[in-house]
């Protein structure tokens, strides 16, 4: 056994040394820990020269999308190597400057379903972080019931003419391109849907940002009026969009649930227990003074640890080929619960100081906490609401029955 494993470990350790040296050379230490968790949602901000240089370096190396094939600009790393890279980045406070929906959702889907021409056209630009993508799925009457979508692509020979409305288009106002589900046949439900790529700068595309309860506008309503879309920009066959679109949602869910790093943010930041001691003080035994709050923080902390153990178990099970892990399908809901509980507890811990909206009298961290709390209400809604996930768990995993 050992003789089989050791060479692999040696190779990984060699890779670790290589990654460490490369990061030492290219990661600007001024950017240590400066990752903005919400940057993908809050839109483009002015990049400092350091940030631009870091993004360029990672883009050229392909390590922003470490496991994508090298021939399309990815890193070509194995999963084990990618984990090592991640560990080495965490060790020095480095972060991945390449992200967004192109990386999380569209890229993996196009690698699976796209034509060779489409891959060569789109993947390298995503790998370098040069093109921003948005998702044209939801419509005002087709959110959770996505198969009901109405945006229509009329056949016009070598191209389609698209009319309709999309909503909840994350980052639509900053996007260059949109991967979009449109109806190409009104007589069929699922089989009438196609997956097309729309240029957000094309004539007839209009976006209107939607302001959220947190005050930010990360989403848009998107209107298509006689937008011309070449058929060459359809992914897969006409009518195959539902299958491709579903596959993309799997990538979305696994990213949202934390397999892609989302959940790691839950483990960052000041521990709630420490916050509570600072804001609430301690009793004569040195415990958080508010005993009810203290125990709710403990319950949350235990939930978080069990979640972390489940993420780890799920990854190990997937790797060891013990069959598909049931754990993966529940991660989104647990991740959402933990995210929201954490934010609620943090706000409660700070009292009125945790409910500031803007201006004097509140620290930046306090305002951030308020906004994070409000924004966090979305995590149990987007990417398939918790109720939809429960339907999926009940029917696909537990084999529960359809209502007759």
């Amino acid at each position: 056994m050992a003789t089989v494993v050791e060479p692999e470990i040696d190779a990984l350790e060699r890779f670790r040394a290589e990654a460490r040296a490369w990061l030492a050379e290219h990661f600007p230490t001024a950017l240590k820990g400066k990752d903005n968790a919400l940057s993908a949602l809050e839109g483009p901000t002015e990049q400092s020269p350091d940030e631009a240089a870091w993004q360029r370096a990672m883009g050229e190396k392909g390590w922003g999308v470490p496991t994508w094939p090298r021939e399309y600009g990815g890193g070509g790393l194995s999963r084990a190597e990618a984990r090592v890279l991640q560990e080495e980045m965490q060790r020095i406070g480095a972060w991945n400057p390449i992200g967004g929906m192109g990386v999380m959702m569209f890229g993996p889907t196009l690698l699976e379903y796209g034509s060779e021409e489409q891959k060569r056209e789109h993947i390298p630009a995503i790998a370098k972080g040069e093109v921003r993508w948005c998702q044209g799925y939801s419509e005002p009457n087709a959110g959770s019931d996505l198969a009901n979508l109405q945006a229509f692509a009329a056949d016009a020979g070598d191209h389609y003419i698209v009319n309709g409305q999309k909503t909840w288009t994350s980052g639509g106002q900053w996007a260059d391109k949109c991967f979009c589900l449109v109806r190409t046949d009104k007589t069929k439900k699922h089989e009438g849907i196609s997956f097309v790529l729309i240029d957000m700068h094309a004539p007839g595309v209009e976006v209107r940002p939607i302001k959220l309860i947190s005050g930010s506008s990360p989403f848009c309503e998107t209107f298509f009026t006689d937008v011309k879309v070449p058929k060459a920009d359809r992914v897969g066959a006409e009518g195959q969009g539902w299958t491709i679109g579903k596959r993309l949602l799997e990538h979305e869910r696994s990213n949202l649930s934390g397999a892609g790093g989302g959940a790691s943010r839950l483990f960052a930041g000041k521990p709630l227990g420490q916050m509570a001691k600072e804001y609430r003080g301690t009793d004569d035994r040195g415990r958080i003074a508010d005993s009810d709050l203290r125990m709710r923080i403990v319950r949350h902390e235990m939930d978080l640890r069990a979640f972390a153990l489940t993420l780890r178990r799920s990854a190990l099970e997937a790797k060891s080929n013990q069959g598909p892990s049931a754990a993966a399908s529940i991660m989104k809901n647990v991740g959402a619960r933990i995210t929201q509980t954490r934010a609620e507890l943090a706000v409660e811990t700070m009292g009125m100081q945790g409910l500031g909206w803007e201006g004097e009298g509140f620290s930046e961290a306090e305002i951030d906490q308020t906004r994070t709390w409000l924004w966090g209400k979305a995590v149990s809604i987007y990417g398939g609401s918790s109720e939809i996930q429960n339907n999926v768990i009940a029917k696909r995993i537990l084999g529960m029955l359809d209502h007759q």
Partner: protein
Amino acid sequence: MAILNEDQVMLRDMAREWADNEAPVTAFRTLRNAGSPAGYDAAQWQAQAEMGWAGIVVPEAHGGAGMGYLSLGLVLEALGRNLGASPLAATAAATSALVLGGSDAQQAEWLPRIASGEIVATLAIDEGPIFAPEAIATRAADGKLSGTKRFVAEGDTAQLFIVAAADGLYLVRGDEGVARMHRAMVDHRSHADIVFEAAPADRLAGGGDGLLAQVADRAAAATAAEMLGLAEAAFEMTNDYLKTRVQFGQKLSSFQALQHRMAAWFTELQLMRSAVEGALEAIDAGRSDIDQAVSLAKAIASDTLHLSSREIVQLHGGIGMTDDHDAGFYLKRARVLETMWGNAAYHRERFARLNGY
């Protein structure tokens, strides 16, 4: 499911098959109906010992398999699924005290007898109805131990007690200076109050000051593994039932309100499994945070089994309230296991303390 090696996969499959064939819930029902004073079937215990289970956490040098706690957990989970009445958990907990704190002579004397299934051993810690290892009145002096222990698992038959006294853990044989009083509990297993009166006692000198806590952690982790078996079985029974029971002209399984309830329950089971396996793995790896891992596991296991035992009764409706149905057995055993070695509140408090909250 944790990543298992070949031996563990074999052990798990064998345990599951044996439990389903030889120790299904009907076997427990038969034992209950017979009013067995021992609380377990001696022939079944011998069969378990012959399969090597009694020696899973006994080192190979002393006739055991030395496989560790994750392996022990696989067997306890399989037994727990069917409410298997076995003294394995209690014996393994006592074994951990000998392995961690016993001298060479003590280990050589007792461990082979445990591994062969010749004797049943158990821990005697609590002196009241609540797990309170910091409040021990039992005293030992000049090799004689006196004190009263409450609710000792397998106390009716155990031939070896590991007893907590104010200055450490002691080995006490079951024969001299030991009076047993059976406590008839809701789960119809063996629990007994034990009065030690100048019972000959042999101190476990190893393991340091924290020996009792280390042993209690291993007992709690083993119990959590048994709880995992109960919770999963309760869930599966309920899910199967919902697929057959018709109300309002529909299978219950087709109602969204019940689907979401089952999905939520299933979700908690996944977290429970991770926490329980995490604790067993922490013990096997000798990690420095075994205490935290165990408190996490026992608190979550207690909460989730609590939920499971309520849901199995509620979702079976009236039939679940009848003695003819097995649901009540799960409810009753669940509460006992939740209470043993610290309930959820105890372990949350300990977890808070360990984390400086």
